[in-house]
């Protein structure tokens, strides 16, 4: 198993290098540089030119690229021009918000998807199965941002069950229990809606898994040995169907990150996705570059995680 994991790590290295080169090229394509924000009508162009030369912006691109990578390793991603603070700290603060939102989203997604998938698979073609099938289909067919928007309209504005924006109420004092409650309150609506949106894949996989495993030889063997049906289901069918779902978890990080742009924008939740959109608005290129790189890196990591879990739970795909 360690060989598989090691091999998987080695595959990730060229991907990581390619990703960084792509993001670097993208960053170079963006207009302006760190000194554009300093320019006022009184600024001497020669002074800016001197600053640019000092920062190494006239060097050949490969020198700039390696300097950029070296800075990355030291946690230096430049200065945010809109927030007037280092990008690393800024993203760090937002990442915490996105992390909690994603965590609650995942919890919601799996607590809804696993029972539904199991029921649909166990009672194939029953009324319950059909209702669940329609549910997954509708969720797949609805454009996600429209679904989020309708949820915000209904539960935020019309019923007023949840706050409509922000990640914590402005009156709450950090450290108090009220602050904690306020954060939960702000996280629930985006997390529930985003969680429901990401259930359809899991439900379909689980349903298919349960149906396939029910027809397997080991299930017939267990039944013919006289193992009680309840045990056959929980030990043989369910367990084998849940394995791919566990492995799929790493991949769902990718989906969550991609969706966070929409979720956080619609619910005005101050996370990384919302930071990305607002930075595009303010042309805060160092933040944009850093976030693009980070999202790509996290996606790679999610896939790595999935493959590792898969090689742990399924010995057949291990490399010897």
């Amino acid at each position, binding site marked *: 198993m360690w060989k598989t994991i090691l091999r998987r790590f080695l595959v990730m290295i060229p*991907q990581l290098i*390619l*990703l960084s080169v*792509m993001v670097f090229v*993208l960053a170079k*394509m*963006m*207009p302006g540089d760190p000194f554009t924000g300093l320019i006022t009508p009184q600024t001497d162009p020669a002074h800016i030119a001197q600053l640019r030369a000092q920062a190494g912006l006239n060097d050949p691109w490969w020198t700039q690229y390696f300097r950029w990578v070296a800075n990355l390793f030291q946690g230096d991603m430049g200065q945010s021009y809109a927030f007037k603070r280092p990008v690393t700290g800024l993203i760090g603060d937002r990442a915490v918000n996105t992390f909690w939102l994603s965590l609650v989203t995942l919890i919601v997604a799996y607590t809804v998807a696993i029972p539904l998938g199991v029921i649909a698979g166990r009672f194939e073609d029953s009324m319950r199965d059909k209702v669940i099938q329609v549910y997954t*289909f*509708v969720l*797949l*067919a*609805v*454009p*996600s*941002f*429209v679904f989020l*928007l*309708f949820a*915000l*309209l209904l539960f935020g*504005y*019309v019923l007023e069950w949840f706050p*409509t*924006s922000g990640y914590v109420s402005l009156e709450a004092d950090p450290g108090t229990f009220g602050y904690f409650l306020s954060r939960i309150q702000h996280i629930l609506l985006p997390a529930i809606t985003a969680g429901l949106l990401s259930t359809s894949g899991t439900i379909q996989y689980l349903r298919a898994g349960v149906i396939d495993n029910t027809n397997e030889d080991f299930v017939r063997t267990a039944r013919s040995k006289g193992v009680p049906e309840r045990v056959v289901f929980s030990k043989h069918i369910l367990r084998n169907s849940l394995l791919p779902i566990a492995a799929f978890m790493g991949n769902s990080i*990718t989906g969550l*990150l*991609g969706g966070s*742009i*929409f979720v956080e*924008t*619609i619910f005005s939740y101050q996370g990384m996705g919302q930071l*990305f*959109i607002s930075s*595009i*608005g303010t*042309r805060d290129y160092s933040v*944009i570059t850093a*976030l*693009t790189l980070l*999202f*790509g890196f996290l*996606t*790679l990591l999610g*896939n790595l995680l999935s493959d590792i879990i898969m090689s742990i739970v399924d010995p057949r795909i291990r490399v010897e």
Partner: protein
Amino acid sequence: MDNNDNQTTAVVAEIKPSPSAFRVIVREFLKDKVAIVSLALALIIMVGSFVWTLFIPNDLVTSVNIMDRYLAPGVNGFILGTDDGGRDIFLYLVVAARNSIFIGVSVAVLNELIGIVLGTISGYFGGLVDNLIMRVVDFWMVLPGNLIIIVLVTIVPNYNQFKLIGIMTLFSWMGTVRLIRSQVLSQGRRDYVMASKTSGTSNLRIMFGGVLPNISSIIITDLTLTIASSIGLESGLAFLGFGLPNNTPSLGTLIGYATQPEIIVDRWWVWLPAALLLLVLSMSINFVGQALKRSADSRQRRG
């Protein structure tokens, strides 16, 4: 003797040629009322918006009439009211739908073309070429597509709708290549391909004359579903403010008004019709796609 005769006719009746792909699809739709209604709705919206736009003056988007600002539906003869520039929401909606559908269909068609070329080459030849194409696909899939699309949309010079189509295609072709490759791969092992190879048919003719027609129903299904997802992606980008250029309305642009708290409830007519139209369009295209998917797989057919 009589008995024997009957048997012969029975055998003859059994080896009727299998129904054509088109007939299978027609039968599947006739068995599925939801699919027929969806097909009708999708066609009405798609064809309707294109035809209607021909009768709408071009200066609709640029003309501003402050006096008619935010009129409620029905007031002064505006069926769906007006927006912040006093523009007729209903006409705006028709043009927006046309634009979104145009982008969605273009992206989907480009995706299929790339998918057919790369997927067929990859699946048919296998080996090094296949390996190379698949590694590129793998890498492309882990890129944060949404983010890069948004960055490109903001920094590309002389941005217009054709560049948007290009940018969107650049980050959505991978799934189709994978799908077509796997289909070609399984077709490539069948007897008819082997027979053609032994009789010396050129690779190009086998690929495009033999294999491709056999997977055409899967390509049509994928095209349909990709149209729906591309319209969704375009509207989503426009919703965030990164879709079509400013003077070109999209369904997403209208829905984007909902991000302003003073509009979402009190001036619902600005964004809600567009959201509902997008919802209906996306669902009906998806329902049609599902029916096509079933007819492409003989085990799932209802008809």
